[in-house]
């Protein structure tokens, strides 16, 4: 097996597994504050190996190998396998590098937390699971890592389990993802029945899609999309993501921005050979993505908690990625996935710096203001990332985001209008955040003086990773051509994905929209410094509409209550109350019948003689007449 697998492919698994085991069994019992060292070393190994894998696939092509048997029954079998092609290695490289840097950031962020060892163990388990998800060669193994990622997310969101909001958010995240996993598991089962003998391997399924029963393929496609809406936070199952910000900032940065939530997009890109042929599904994906992107973008512009703004922004950008995929522009969608990983991570880490500087888990706009002087490094990184997010040339976001929005314009006028709105809103909300936090401070803001804390720039552990990732947020966009070549390696559909090359002069409409959004936000945050607070007070009803996500959050709360009510009815009043009572009543009936029988034995000899005489008479009659 070692002859078949390159060393880097072995290392991306061996390093995290051994790091977790060493940390848990050897380091933690004796020197808990050093738990993160084996893990950081493992991160370095993984990051280097992932980049080497990408280079290898780029030059020599894909690798797909079955490693070991998993479940076997007769001729039915599932196995573990590795697939390193363009798609997986491109996303893997981003995940590995960004993830490694966020581990370093976490070493600084979680330094004073007494549960730091537990944090790093789960964080690294998540890292391992994500690597496994990206490199799986069949749907069931992908599902294994998909769920493992969800489990890690549960424990990490609920890391500060003393807080009721964190507990609730963790449970919500897990349950909503489980509802999505309903789709994935069912799709995997249907895949095994529609493609017998394939073991749900991609290389066996995709070439045979045309010959499989179309109804099953249709169902599988829609179910996979359902699963992706949960994991990648699209409407209707997106609402767990904003609340997931209860976790520590490294968690939000890595999982809920750069990696875990992109798993759904990755799944759809991976399944494109199957999805492309399902009628109406690609268009559905595109429209759901577009609607989610716009809706989330609007709500992001109304939030005051820094991480919540970024959470809705993530939902919005996932919508953009879904839009790209749905329109058939897989290359653009994946490109945006990669650039988004960089600039969103930077934004989250900067928000983390601000919160950490204030000594709180998260910060709001009210506590910030005028931080440009007190946190210059954070300001620079944030600005770079903001420009990238808004899609301004020559930053990374321009090349990816505008490629998707361009394709949307080409699709049709309606979609084009939505795309324009998305472009405008993205710039609006991120520049609103930039101006509100770093310019000022405004009358309603504290300017970084919260409860005696004077905000200051973060230390080296936290500052350097942010800097390094921001470099990515600037430069990654320049490698669109290389990405296109990479993606074509091992692509399993007919047409390899293309990454459109955006030229600044041709893209002037979207640049203009971005600048318009930035200018509008400048107007409403700096030229009118109190506007952001005033509109909430003047129209509380409108504020309530945005706060409830256009009414979707109360609807979901109602669904949860209905489930609990149904279970109470079934479990308590039906099962214990009615059915069990009935059964126990049969026992009581037997006792009653016995009592009635016992009542015949009165103890009086006369009665007994009477019964005897009657019995004899009956017998006599029977003998005489029968």
């Amino acid at each position, binding site marked *: 097996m070692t002859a078949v697998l390159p060393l880097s492919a072995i290392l991306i698994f061996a390093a995290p597994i051994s790091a977790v085991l060493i940390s848990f069994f050897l380091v933690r019992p004796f020197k808990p504050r050093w738990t993160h060292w084996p893990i950081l070393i493992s991160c370095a190994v993984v990051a280097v190996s992932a980049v080497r894998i990408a280079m290898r696939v780029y030059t020599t092509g894909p690798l797909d190998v079955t490693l070991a048997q998993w479940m076997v029954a007769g001729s039915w079998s599932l196995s573990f396998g590795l697939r390193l092609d363009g798609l997986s290695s491109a996303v893997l490289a981003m995940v590995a590098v960004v993830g490694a840097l966020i581990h370093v950031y976490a070493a600084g962020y979680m330094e004073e937390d007494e549960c730091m060892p537990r944090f790093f163990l789960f964080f690294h388990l998540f890292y391992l699971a994500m690597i496994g998800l990206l490199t799986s060669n069949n749907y069931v193994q992908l599902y294994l890592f998909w769920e493992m990622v969800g489990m890690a997310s549960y424990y990490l969101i609920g890391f500060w389990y003393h807080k009721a909001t964190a507990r609730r958010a963790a449970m919500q995240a897990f349950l909503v993802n489980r509802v999505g996993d309903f789709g994935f598991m*069912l799709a995997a089962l249907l895949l095994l029945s529609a493609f017998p003998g394939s073991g749900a391997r991609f290389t066996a399924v995709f070439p045979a899609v045309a010959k499989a029963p179309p109804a099953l393929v249709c169902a599988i496609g829609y179910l996979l999309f359902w699963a992706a809406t949960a994991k990648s936070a699209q409407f209707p199952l997106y609402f767990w993501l904003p609340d997931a910000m209860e976790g520590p900032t490294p968690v939000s940065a890595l999982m809920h921005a750069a990696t875990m939530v992109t798993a759904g997009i990755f799944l759809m890109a991976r399944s494109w050979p199957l999805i492309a042929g399902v009628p109406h599904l690609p268009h559905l994906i595109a429209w759901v993505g577009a609607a989610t992107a716009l809706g989330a973008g609007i709500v992001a512009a109304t939030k005051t908690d820094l991480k919540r703004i970024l959470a809705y922004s993530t939902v919005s950008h996932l919508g953009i990625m879904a839009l790209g995929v749905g329109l058939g522009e897989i290359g653009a969608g994946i490109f945006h996935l990669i650039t988004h990983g960089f600039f969103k991570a930077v934004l989250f880490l900067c928000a983390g710096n601000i919160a950490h500087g204030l000594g709180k888990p998260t910060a709001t706009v009210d506590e910030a203001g005028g931080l440009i002087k007190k946190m210059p490094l954070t300001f620079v990184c944030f600005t770079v990332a903001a420009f990238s997010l808004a899609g301004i040339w020559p930053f990374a976001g321009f090349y990816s985001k505008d490629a998707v929005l361009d394709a949307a314009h080409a699709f049709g006028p309606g979609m084009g209008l939505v795309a324009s709105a998305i472009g405008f809103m993205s710039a609006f909300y991120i520049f609103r955040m930039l101006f509100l936090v770093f310019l000022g401070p405004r009358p309603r803001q504290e300017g970084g003086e919260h409860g005696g804390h004077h905000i200051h720039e973060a230390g080296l552990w936290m500052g350097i990773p942010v800097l390094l990732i921001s470099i990515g947020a600037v430069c990654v966009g320049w490698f669109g051509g290389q990405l296109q070549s990479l993606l074509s390696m091992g692509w399993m559909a007919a047409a390899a994905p293309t990454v459109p090359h955006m030229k600044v002069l041709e893209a002037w409409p979207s640049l203009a929209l971005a600048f318009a959004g930035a200018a509008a936000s400048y107007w409403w945050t700096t030229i009118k410094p109190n506007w952001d607070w005033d509109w909430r007070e003047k129209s509380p009803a409108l504020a309530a509409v945005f706060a409830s996500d256009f009414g979707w959050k109360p609807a979901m709360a109602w669904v949860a209550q209905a489930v609990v009510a149904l279970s109470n009815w079934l479990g308590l009043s039906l099962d214990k109350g009615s059915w069990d009572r009935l059964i126990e009543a049969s026992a009581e009936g037997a006792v009653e019948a016995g009592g009635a029988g016992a009542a015949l034995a009165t103890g009086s000899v006369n009665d007994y003689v009477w019964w005897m005489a009657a019995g004899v008479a009956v017998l006599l009659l029977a003998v005489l007449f029968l």
Partner: protein
Amino acid sequence: MIFSPLTILWALPIVGGFLALALRSGKRAGVFSIALSLISLAFCALLPWREGAALAVTGPAWAYGIHYALSMDGLSWVMCLLNAFLTVIALVSSLGEERSAGYWAAFLFLEGALMGVFLASDLFLFYVFWEVVLIPMFFIIGLWGSANRKHAAVKFFLFTFFGSVLMLLGILALVTLRHRATGVWSWDMQGLQGVATGPAAWAIFAALTVGFGVKVPIVPLHTWLPDAHTEAPAAGSIMLAGVMLKMGVYGFLRIAIPIFPHLSWRLLPWLAAIAAINIIYGAFCALAQSDLKRLVAYSSIAHLGFCLVGVFSRTVEGLAGGTLQLINHGLTTGALFLMVGILYERSHKRGIRDFGALFGQAPWLTFFFSFSIMASIGLPGLNGFVGEFMSLAGAARVLPILAVAGVAGVTLAAAYALPAYQLVFWGDRGPSSVSSHVTDLTVREQALLWVLCLGMLYIGLHPSGLLSVITPATKGLAL
């Protein structure tokens, strides 16, 4: 020749039980019983049976063609192994409190009788062992259980006895019909296909289904289970959920389906509905519970629904998966009942809301509980997923709507398990009078849980070992 390894397998614990009673002192009986159960486990694991050369022993005929006949194939072997293993776990877990000699003896009797059920290949012998199983369990619940134990023990006994009587009627009918057809009195399990036809076949299959179904338990016939589990001592629950519930599915695999292969296939929609209702109804009921033991009891009903799904699908992977799930469920639920028992032993409370923030003072307990809960809800990589997935894969091939119900059950499992886990182990600190008593695991308890959890992980990633034993035994039933 009656004397054979198979006879030793069931007779050893029974004789040991009598010896334990004779020892009088609870301490000595305890040590003796644990030693004996370990010997029994080793003996079972090392039995020299091979596929194609199954062990069997037949004794002289008694009356009406009743023979003393035992046999062991892959299915029987894994069930006996599960029985022996969980007996060890149950006995070692009982060392925490003072127990009388009768307690230890009861578990040994239970182990022996269960071995007999899984080994018998004569229908009369099967019935005798089936009924004998009820007796030690009745005493375990009734003498050493919780507050409402007498009611629960009587309810358990009468309810399952009712089912067994129906099963007996079915068996008697089959044997009589065979006698009528061939003129020979024989109670052998083989050779009964085609003996019953028409309405008689329907009636007999229904009787057998009810008889086995009460043990599984199938949903309308399940109400004995929550009470029995809640009132039984922890070790009793481990044996009850871990092994006794499997008797029902074993009965389907060994008797009902082989004798009625075509009728059970024709009735697939009904049987599938039964399994699906088990899964969904069990999950919803578990959601509503506030007593930890009751919650695990209802979750057992849901898990056994998955086993039935696999078995009724009559596909190779479904049968193998459903049978494997019997073992997985034994491990997972055994671990969960073990830990709930530990909680009860320490604090005398079982309610979900009675605790809070136990993570702080009992981190190892939390770790193992998380692990087991994740296995129970079917997290891939652990054992629960393998059995459920294979069963549902079989169902998807045969009746897709059944797979939909099954996956819905998987989704619901998280809904009932996680809130309970969170309330007990995370959450705000509960009344200190309760929580402060819950100290972390002792070395003995940790050892038991490491064994169980490593087993869950191993089976989850590498089930081929067990599957290679189970599949040849069950694939004969596949269509």
